[in-house]
C-alpha cells in the first residue's frame, strides 16, 4: 500500500478487536483510504467486515490500533458524530431510510439545530441547501417527494448524499473530502438499478472516496480501484485492480482459503439420484430478481444454485419456499402445480421445507430444544388413540438429534437462548432432518459454524440424501457445493449461465 501521505485521508493501522466468545474478530488489520478512490472490502460473513465498519464509524472502539486523519494521528472516534469529524460516515445496508419523511427532511435529519431561527426551523434555508446538494450529485428527484415515493436506487443515492452531508456539516466546509462507507449498498436493488447506482457513484468520485463493503465479487471487481480481502479477521490479500490482473477465482481462493479446502471432511460420495422427479421449475420469472429459471429436481438429488450475492439465488430459493411470490412460469411439486402466492405452511404441506442459517428467524429461542424440534414433527409425537402430545416421545426425539449432530448442551430441556450460535444452528438443522420433507431447501446452512460442527452437519445431510430427500443448496462456501451437490447451476444477474455436475465442479475447485 504505497501511497503519498498527502493523498491519504483516513488510515488505520494494526487494528485488532476481540469479543468475549469470538477470538480475533479483527486481527492486525490496516487500511488506507486516499482521495478520489473507491476501495473494496470483501470477505465471507463473519470475516470481520461488519466489525471493521463499526470501528470506523465509532460504534465501538478497537482493542488496539492507530488512526491517522490526513497524516496526523488522532484518537478513534467514540460515536458516529466524532467519526464524521474525522471525515467518515456510513450508509447502512437496510433500515437507514425513513419512508414518511420528505427528501429535504431526511437529508438534514439530525442536523436541525444548525438551522433554527426564533425557535422554529428555517425551512427555506434547508430546502435551498437540499436542492443544491441534489443537483451536485445529480439526483433526479423533487425535494418535496416523500422518501417512500422514490425508487430504491434514488433512495440509496439520497442516503449517500446524507452521509456526505454529515461529514460536511461537522466540518462546516463544503470542500472537505469525505469517506463514505457503503455497506452492501446494492442488496435490495434490481439488476438495472445497480447499474444506475454505480454510474452515479462513479460520478461522485471527485470529492468523495468510498469504501465499498460487499460480497458481490463481480461488482467489486468492476467498480473499485483497490480491494482488501478479509478472512477470519485477518487481511489476507490486497489487490490493486489498476495494476494487477485478478480473476474471480483468485478472489474465491482468497476469501475461502486454500488450506481449508484440505481440512474438509471427505466422505465417500455416492451420487444417488433416482429417476423420479419431485420438483419441476419451469421458466420461473420475477422481474428484477430472476428470469426464466428452469430445472428439474430428482428424488435423492441435491442441486446447488451457485452465484455471487445478488445473482438471484436467494430469491429463487425463497420463492420455492413460499416467502416470495413469482410472476411468471410454473412450479410443479410432486406433480401438483403450486400457486404463485402461497404461504410457507402451504408449501410445507406440499412437501417443501426451508431452512435458513439465519438463526432467530425460525427458532423459538425461549423454547427448549425439545419443543423446537417437535414443532415441525408434531404428528410423530402424538399418542395413538387420543391425539395428545407424548412428552416422553418428544424427549427421546430430541435426545436422538442431539446425539447424532453432537449438539453441545447440558440437556434437551435447555432453552435455546443459552446455546451457542453453532448449537442453535444444529438444532434448526436437526429438526428438519427429523422431519425429512420430500424437498429441503438449505440457505447458508453452515454460516458461522466451526469446522468440527460442519462435519457433523455434512454427515447428516448426506445421510438423509441417501434416504431419498432431495435438496436445493445455497451457500457462500464453494466447498459445500462440491461436497453435497450432484448438479450445480451457475447463476448471474438472475439468469442461468451453465449447469455442471458435482464431480466436474470439484475438479475445477481443486485446481
Amino acid at each position, binding site marked *: 500500500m504505497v501511497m503519498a501521505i498527502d493523498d491519504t485521508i483516513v488510515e488505520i493501522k494494526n487494528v485488532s478487536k476481540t469479543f468475549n466468545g469470538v477470538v480475533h474478530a479483527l486481527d492486525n488489520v490496516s487500511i488506507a483510504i486516499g482521495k478520489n478512490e473507491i476501495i473494496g472490502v470483501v470477505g465471507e460473513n463473519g470475516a470481520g467486515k461488519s466489525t471493521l465498519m463499526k470501528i470506523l464509524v465509532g460504534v465501538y472502539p478497537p482493542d488496539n490500533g492507530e488512526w491517522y486523519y490526513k497524516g496526523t494521528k488522532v484518537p478513534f472516534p467514540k460515536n458516529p458524530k466524532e467519526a464524521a469529524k474525522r471525515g467518515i460516515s456510513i450508509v447502512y445496508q437496510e*433500515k*437507514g431510510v425513513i419512508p414518511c419523511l420528505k427528501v429535504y427532511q431526511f437529508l438534514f435529519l439530525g442536523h436541525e439545530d444548525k438551522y433554527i431561527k426564533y425557535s422554529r*426551523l428555517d425551512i427555506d434555508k434547508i430546502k435551498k441547501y437540499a436542492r443544491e446538494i441534489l443537483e451536485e450529485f445529480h439526483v433526479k428527484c423533487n425535494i418535496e417527494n416523500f422518501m417512500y415515493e422514490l425508487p430504491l436506487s434514488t433512495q440509496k443515492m439520497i442516503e449517500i448524499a446524507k452521509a456526505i452531508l454529515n461529514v460536511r456539516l461537522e466540518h462546516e466546509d463544503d470542500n472537505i473530502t469525505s469517506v463514505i462507507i457503503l455497506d452492501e449498498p446494492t442488496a435490495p436493488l434490481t439488476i438495472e438499478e445497480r447499474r444506475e447506482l454505480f454510474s452515479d457513484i462513479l460520478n461522485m468520485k471527485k470529492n468523495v472516496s468510498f469504501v465499498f463493503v460487499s460480497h458481490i465479487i463481480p461488482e467489486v471487481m468492476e467498480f473499485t480501484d483497490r480491494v482488501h480481502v478479509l478472512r477470519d479477521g485477518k487481511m489476507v490479500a490486497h489487490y490493486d485492480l489498476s495494476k494487477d490482473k485478478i480473476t474471480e477465482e483468485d478472489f474465491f481462493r482468497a476469501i475461502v482459503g486454500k488450506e481449508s479446502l484440505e481440512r474438509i471432511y471427505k466422505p465417500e460420495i455416492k451420487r444417488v439420484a433416482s429417476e423420479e422427479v419431485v420438483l419441476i421449475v419451469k421458466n420461473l420469472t420475477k422481474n428484477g430478481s430472476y428470469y426464466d429459471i428452469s430445472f428439474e429436481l430428482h428424488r435423492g438429488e441435491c442441486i446447488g444454485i451457485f452465484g455471487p450475492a445478488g445473482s438471484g439465488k436467494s430469491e429463487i430459493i425463497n420463492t420455492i419456499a413460499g416467502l416470495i411470490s413469482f410472476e411468471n412460469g410454473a412450479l410443479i411439486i410432486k406433480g401438483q402445480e403450486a400457486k404463485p402466492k402461497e404461504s410457507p405452511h402451504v408449501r410445507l404441506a406440499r412437501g417443501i421445507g426451508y431452512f435458513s442459517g439465519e438463526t432467530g428467524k425460525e427458532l423459538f429461542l425461549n423454547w427448549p430444544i425439545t419443543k423446537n424440534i417437535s414443532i415441525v414433527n408434531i404428528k410423530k409425537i402424538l399418542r395413538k388413540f387420543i391425539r395428545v402430545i407424548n412428552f416422553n416421545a418428544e424427549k427421546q426425539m430430541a435426545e436422538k438429534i442431539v446425539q447424532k449432530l453432537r449438539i453441545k448442551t447440558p440437556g434437551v430441556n435447555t432453552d435455546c437462548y443459552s446455546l451457542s450460535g453453532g448449537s442453535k444452528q444444529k438444532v434448526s438443522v436437526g429438526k428438519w432432518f427429523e422431519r425429512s420433507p420430500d424437498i429441503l431447501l438449505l440457505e447458508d446452512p453452515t454460516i458461522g459454524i466451526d469446522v468440527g460442527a460442519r462435519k457433523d452437519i455434512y454427515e447428516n445431510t448426506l445421510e438423509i440424501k441417501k434416504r431419498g430427500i432431495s435438496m436445493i443448496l445455497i451457500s457462500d462456501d464453494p466447498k459445500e457445493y462440491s461436497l453435497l451437490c450432484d448438479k450445480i447451476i451457475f447463476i448471474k444477474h438472475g439468469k442461468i449461465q451453465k449447469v455442471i455436475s458435482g464431480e466436474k465442479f470439484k475438479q475445477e475447485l481443486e485446481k
Partner: protein
Amino acid sequence: MKIPNKKKLIPSIIIQTIKIYPVTLFLFALVVIFSSLYPEKFLNPLNLSTILRQFVSLMLFALGPSIVVVTGSLDLSYVGIWMLGGILVWLLMPTLGIFSILVIPLLGLATGFIVGVIQAKAKMPSFILTLSVLVIYCGLTGTISGGISRSVRGYEFITARLIPYIPTAFLWTIPIIIAAVFIMKYTKIGIYLYAIGSNEEGARLAGINVDKYKILAFTISGLFSGIGSVIYFQHQGGSVPVVLNLNTMVWPLVAIVLGGTPLTGGSGGPQRTILGALTFTVLCRGLTLSFLDPTMIQLITGLLLIASIIASSRGSKGVTIL
C-alpha cells in the same frame, strides 16, 4: 412553467386538498346530506353552535393523543387526567384558591412524563399502559370525590359568553390547536416524532435519541390533555364525572383515525385530526337530529372506528403488530 389562469387555479387547490386529506370528501358529503334532509334543524345557528361545542370537546382530548400516535404509540390516559385533575381542583380549592386550576396541566405533564419513561425504558406496550393509568386515575377520582360528582365555582370567566353563538371555549381552543400544529410541522421535535413513527430503527441510526423523544411526545401529550381539560372542565360546568364512560375515551380515537393519521405513525397528526373531529361531530349531530335511536349512535361509532382503522391499516407496510 406557465401560470395557470385563475379559472383553473381554484379547482386544482380543491383537488390537492382532497388528495392530501381524503376525509374532506366525506365531510362535504355529510354536510350536503344533512343539510338537504333537515334544512331547518341542521343549518340553523343553534345547531352550528352545538357542533362547535362538540367539536371543541373532541379536539381538546384528541390533540394530545394525536401527537403520540404519530410516533406509533397510543395514549389513552387523557380522560383520566381530566377526571383526576378536576377532582384535585375541587380538593385544593380551599387551600390554593384560584390557582388550583393549575394542578390540571401539571398533572397532565407529570402523567405524560411517567408514562413516557415507562414506555421507553421498561418497554411496556403503550395501549395497555395508558389504559391502566386511566383506570388508576378513575379509581383515585372516585376515592377522593367519595363517589359523588363535585363541582367547583369560580372559573366561569373561562367560558363566559363573548360572541353570540360561538362558544368561548372554541376561542380558547384555537391557540392550542395552532400550538400543536406548529410543534408538529415547524420544529425539530415534530420531524423527529414523524421519523420515529416511520422507522424507529432508522431514526436511531440517524443519531436521534429515540427514548428522549418518545418521552417528550408523551409529556407533550399529557400537557395538552391537561390544558384541554382545563377548558373542558369549565365547558362542562366545573365538574367531572366519577364513572368512566367508554365513549368519552373512544371518540377522540375515532377523530384521530378518521382524520387520516395511521396508527402505525409516521404521518398525519393534529392537522388531520381537526378534520376528523369535525367530520365525526357533524356525523353525530346529524344522526342525533334524525330519528335514529340514540343508542344506534354508539353502534355507528364503533363501526366507523373499525372501518377507518381498516382503511388506514391497508397502508401499513408489513408491520408485525400486537
